[in-house]
């Protein structure tokens, strides 16, 4: 959406000068307690309603995931996984998938269009679609496979963490609607404390590996999970255990670009200096061979 918080931008795509950051807001986070989620998908509906998006009706592909995947018009999707525990008990893992709002966002790093992706001081990473050029580099950069390119307008879309609501002091729509309190929202600090209490509770109930998912490889995230099996995040529909921006992306967007530009400039400069030193290469003034009609 359009940038609503223009004074507190800490990161801006394809920008090499400081962004307007006169105002500093509290770092926020959404905490998703998977142990409390019943998979009702009210959050999906609330997201669709608040953002006024109506994805096309899909097809039943034999699983509860509906729609089957994230989309330019479906910014959050419940991912259902049937997990068999060591003792043979079946467990239904339901993860609310969507943008994690990384502190070190791979999408923002990869984006070539100035200001098409911004990061606010509250931690929200927002796509400013009017500046999007439709290249999909954000998809290449994202460690969580979240941004989706719209077939309608060739712009990318994803969860905004309801940046419009948050900017006026409201909680995200999914948080507001969650009937079990599985989704909570507040300052990142408070959410970590709340998570710690939940984890103590889960451990008391026998989930020894319960823990908080706030992966340090991307600098932490502003959407965090409480997992009963935090030692095995992959079982939650492929949630990466240690996500980070791919080294191929960070080299491409990092060291390589200035080095390549410098190489181009220096090569051209070498030509200038060579010309000044050696002078133009003219044909030799040699005597013509016999029969040369040049004479």
């Amino acid at each position: 959406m359009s940038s609503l918080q223009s004074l507190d931008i800490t990161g801006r795509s394809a920008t090499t000068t400081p962004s307007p950051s006169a105002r500093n807001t509290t770092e926020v986070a959404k905490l998703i307690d998977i142990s409390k989620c019943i998979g009702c998908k009210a959050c999906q509906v609330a997201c669709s309603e608040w953002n006024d998006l109506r994805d096309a009706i899909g097809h039943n592909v034999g699983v509860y995931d509906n729609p089957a995947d994230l989309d330019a018009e479906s910014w959050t999707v419940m991912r259902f996984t049937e997990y068999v525990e060591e003792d043979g008990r079946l467990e239904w893992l339901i993860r609310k998938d969507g943008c994690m709002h990384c502190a070190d966002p791979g999408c923002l790093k990869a984006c070539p269009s100035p200001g098409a992706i911004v990061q606010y001081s509250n931690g929200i990473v927002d796509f400013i679609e009017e500046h999007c050029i439709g290249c999909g580099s954000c998809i290449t950069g994202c460690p969580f496979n979240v941004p989706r390119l719209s077939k309608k307008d060739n712009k990318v879309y994803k969860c905004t963490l309801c940046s419009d609501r948050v900017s006026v002091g409201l909680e995200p729509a999914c948080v507001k609607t969650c009937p079990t309190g599985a989704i909570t929202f507040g300052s990142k600090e408070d959410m970590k404390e709340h998570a710690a209490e939940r984890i103590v509770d889960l451990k008391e109930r026998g989930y020894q590996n319960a823990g908080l998912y706030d992966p340090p490889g991307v600098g932490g995230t502003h959407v965090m999970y409480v997992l009963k099996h935090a030692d095995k995040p992959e079982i939650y529909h492929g949630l990466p255990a240690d996500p980070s921006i791919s080294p191929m992306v960070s080299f491409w967007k990092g060291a390589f670009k200035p080095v390549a530009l410098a190489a181009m400039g220096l090569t051209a400069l070498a030509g200038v200096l060579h010309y000044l030193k050696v002078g133009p290469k003219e044909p030799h003034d040699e005597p013509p061979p016999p029969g040369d009609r040049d004479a």
Partner: protein
Amino acid sequence: MTSRRPRETAMPKPADAIVRYTYAERASHWLLVISFFLAALSGLAFFHPSLFWLTNFFGGGPWTKILHPFLGVAMALFFIALALRVWHHNVIKEADKEWLKHAGDVMAGHEERAPPAGKYNAGQKVLFWLLALCVLGLVVTGFVFWRPYFAGAFPIWLVRLATLLHAIAATGLILLIIGHIYMSLWTKGSIRAMTQGWVTRSWARSNHPAWYREVTKER
């Protein structure tokens, strides 16, 4: 008038000028030049934030993104068209290895120390094959992350690798072309060869002696 120095411009075509490039070769070359500059400038626009202003030449960011892959494909096709005409002159032979050892001499203005060059000297031959490698690399990697048409067919690790290799191949191509342009500016008479098609006998004799002997049957 044996000591006449050919001027770069406004020199009338001597009666005994040697044809170096036919109309078809020249047209092929300059179509490639135009498509290279369009593809390179539209690509550089996304390469570094300081160059994003280049999108203004192509109608803004989205249009530049839409056009760049097609411009790149056009460049590759024009490259193939030219390469089909000239590749057989660029086969690297034993004498070329000796020539390359004297590349420093040539750059210092002592070409006579290197073995006599044919239609293309060893440096030009190496350039040709490196250009071919870069263009091939750019096209192959470009398709892998061409959205929305092709990128979805490839795993994300391959898309990331292709994106990086595309940037590396593009940098290589641009560096080679900077070198190529400089050589044409340095070697007087060569731009006329590629625009008007002919060279003087002394140009051919001093820059490409073996080719001179081949086309004139003179020694």
